């Protein structure tokens, strides 16, 4: 990770001096007509792996999620008992997350909503972020929305979270002093070490990263990007990362959900 950071520094020093020396990154949003899913930037073999519904290893978690969805734990009602045998009632739901929970006023993502159902409707303890079971259920629920365009509400009570996420996106951080926007708005399509920098959309998450050798959440990816610029990453599931998730979802509006993605 340290080596990656150093190389990032060299790459940027060599190919582009920041427009305003250590100034505020350009705040222009990504124009709609150039919006492309991260899948478009993959090597052909990785893209082929994502497109193959058997070979895509993310489906191991979808299968596991489906089993968990249908099974009642410790005599509790199964998810399927309330949401339909094949999750019929949840088709399309994931495309509208994160959203503000009316009762608590807090921002919840799919992981949070699943844990809320566990606590309120199943009398079960919440699952740990990044546990295989929460990833499996999140992947299963997100996969039910595969092909649905991302569309989130950032008005009313969601507005302050949206602004928090946007600020995070355009703020320089870490020893490399880089903002998300400097890679994903200003340098997408260019090379960084072995990667082609994408536009940084979250529409394929949870995704199977070959580097992780496992499925991971969007927050784990954000954690990697923060570490890449040698910044202190935020905790997975934190309000900050949920706010960034909301900003990213609004920014990705219209792109189809692709869960489970496959990434390098």
């Amino acid at each position, binding site marked *: 990770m340290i080596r990656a950071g150093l190389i990032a520094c060299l790459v940027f020093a060599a190919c582009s001096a920041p427009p305003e020396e250590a100034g505020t990154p350009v705040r222009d949003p990504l124009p709609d007509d150039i919006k492309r899913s991260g899948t478009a930037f993959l090597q052909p073999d990785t893209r082929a792996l994502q497109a193959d519904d*058997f*070979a895509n*290893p993310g489906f*191991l*978690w979808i299968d*596991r999620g489906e*089993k968990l969805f249908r099974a009642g734990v410790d005599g509790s009602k199964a998810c399927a008992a309330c949401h339909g045998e094949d999750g019929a009632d949840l088709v399309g739901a994931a495309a509208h997350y994160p959203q503000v929970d009316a009762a608590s006023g807090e921002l919840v993502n799919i992981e949070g909503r699943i844990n809320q159902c566990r606590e309120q409707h199943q009398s079960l303890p919440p699952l740990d972020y990044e546990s295989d079971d929460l990833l499996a259920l999140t992947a299963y629920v997100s996969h039910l929305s595969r092909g649905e365009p991302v569309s989130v509400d950032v008005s009313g009570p969601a507005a302050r979270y949206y602004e928090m996420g946007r600020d995070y996106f355009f703020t320089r951080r870490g020893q490399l002093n880089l903002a998300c926007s400097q890679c994903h708005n200003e340098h997408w399509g260019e090379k960084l070490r072995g990667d082609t920098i994408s536009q940084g959309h979250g529409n394929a998450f949870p995704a199977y990263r*070959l580097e992780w*050798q*496992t499925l991971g959440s969007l927050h784990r990816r954000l954690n990697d990007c923060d570490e890449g610029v040698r910044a202190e990453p935020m905790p997975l599931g934190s309000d900050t990362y949920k706010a960034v998730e909301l900003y990213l979802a609004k920014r990705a509006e219209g792109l189809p959900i692709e869960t489970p993605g496959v990434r390098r």
Partner: protein
Amino acid sequence: MTIRISAPDTASKGEVIELKAMIQHKMETGYRRDSRGDVVARDVITRFECRYNGELVFASDFHPGIAANPFLSFHTRATESGTLDFTWTDQDGQSWSETHELTVE
């Protein structure tokens, strides 16, 4: 342990069929260290076998260095109706299996 099998339900006698098998397993090499510098213990599957009505039709020995969640694809000839049995065994002798019924017409 999640297992995924892809195999036809029916085949004609003599037909060559493709079988695919994947298992969720971390295939920990034993060469990595954790954030505290401690060696992460090796935990790998060492053997995969596919039996067709009890007869071994495909086998594979696994070693550290094989990626997590190993995926295999291979072929066999459909000879008679019966059971395909897919079994993975790890370094400690623990094993996981899945079966698939094949009808040969």
